[in-house]
């Protein structure tokens, strides 16, 4: 394969890490891709900028807000100066812009492998009931609230404790009505309406990472259990598993929605009952775990996006351990200066 310039965002490998470094590392490990990684960062302090063995060149990007004009101008600049064959956006907040202007990206000669806007909206927290139904799995009792009155009704109906969730990010447990109201106001202030109120289901928290081909077929799935998490709820150690009911639900998700692109399913499993908690329409930050057990989903995404034939998804072994660790690098201040003054490093 010819030298490929691949844009990767979410290279903020901090205590709440983005998936970008795991994606970039996976691409680098598939030598036949000849991947040249272009880091798309929002802050000069994103560690991926300085990890030159993983990210070849980094650019500071404008935020993907408004109509995205400035963002797309920046992409055009990168493409013209250094080449940009494909982008793997890894942050939730970027996806609406990428989906809205997908045609324009294609015209610019930049490939992506993402779901349609319709599919993206379906996985929203306010639409999970419909998706869970199509996946034939359970959903904790859920109420979508757009007013304080509806919140009180939801808490009354579901009974305490409940999870109070923002429409995009964040979820808090509420054990009293007052806590529920506090979380409601905080979430509305940060993320707007609606707010989702959900019964708490106890059981094992299991997750699946996957990649759909857009025609109902799977390009790879790996199931895991988080053994330990940080205070922010991020995985620190985990183990691969094969929970038959959960994996079948993931396959149904791909088949029923004809999902195109990466995703993560967050589930609670109680015996043979699988409850859907959340669908993330992107790779999770632990994407390298799948690569490490032989299922290199970012590399498979690249081939799918470029229409390159590839063998069926490989299998993996249950019982493989994932251990995240902290590490340090020391580099020259010049790189930081370049990020701040020129907006590009490498």
């Amino acid at each position, binding site marked *: 394969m010819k030298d490929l310039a691949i844009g990767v965002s979410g290279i903020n490998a901090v205590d709440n890490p983005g998936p970008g470094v795991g994606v970039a590392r996976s691409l680098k490990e598939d030598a036949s891709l000849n991947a040249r990684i272009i880091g798309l960062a929002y802050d000069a302090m994103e560690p991926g900028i300085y990890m030159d063995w993983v990210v070849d060149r980094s650019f500071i990007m404008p935020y993907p807000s408004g109509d995205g004009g400035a963002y797309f101008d920046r992409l055009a600049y990168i493409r013209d100066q250094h080449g940009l064959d494909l982008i793997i956006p890894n942050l939730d907040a970027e996806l609406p812009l990428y989906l809205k202007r997908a045609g324009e990206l294609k015209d610019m000669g930049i490939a992506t492998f993402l779901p349609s806007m319709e599919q993206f909206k379906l996985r929203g927290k306010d639409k999970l009931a419909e998706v869970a139904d199509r996946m034939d799995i359970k959903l904790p009792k859920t109420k979508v609230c757009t007013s304080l009155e509806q919140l009180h009704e939801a808490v009354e109906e579901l009974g305490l404790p409940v999870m109070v969730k923002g429409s995009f990010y964040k979820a808090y447990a509420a054990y009293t009505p007052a806590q529920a109201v506090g979380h409601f106001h905080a979430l509305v202030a940060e993320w707007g309406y609606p707010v989702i109120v959900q019964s708490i289901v106890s059981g094992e928290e299991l997750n699946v990472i996957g990649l759909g081909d857009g025609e109902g077929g799977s390009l790879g799935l790996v199931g895991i259990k988080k053994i330990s998490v940080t205070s922010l709820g991020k995985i620190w150690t985990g*183990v691969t*598993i094969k929970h*038959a009911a959960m994996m079948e639900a993931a396959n149904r998700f791909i088949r029923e929605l004809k999902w195109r692109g990466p995703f993560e399913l967050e589930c609670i499993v109680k015996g043979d009952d699988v409850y859907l908690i959340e669908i993330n329409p992107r790779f999770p930050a632990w994407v390298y775990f799948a690569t490490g057990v032989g299922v290199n989903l970012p590399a498979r995404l690249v081939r799918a996006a470029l229409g390159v034939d590839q063998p069926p998804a490989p299998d993996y072994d249950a019982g493989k351990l994932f251990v995240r660790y902290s590490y340090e690098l020391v580099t020259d201040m010049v790189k930081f200066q370049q990020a701040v003054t020129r907006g590009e490093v490498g």
Partner: protein
Amino acid sequence: MNRLSQLALSDEGFVFDPQTGDSFQVSETGIAVLRALKEGRSDEEITQQLVAHFEVSPEEARRDCTDFRGQLKNFGLA
């Protein structure tokens, strides 16, 4: 498939459930009982095996076997 037959059991007594990711540690006796259960042996056969290999009476071995089955049930494995 039977949950017990899926369990991975090491010689050191480390048990891994590939369905849930749970892991357990069992004693030497536990290893013997679990291996026998995975092979589909009856409680009576397991009792005889325990009596033959460990210094226990048949009553004690039977009780241990029943207790072990109870624990497996508690963990959703039987």
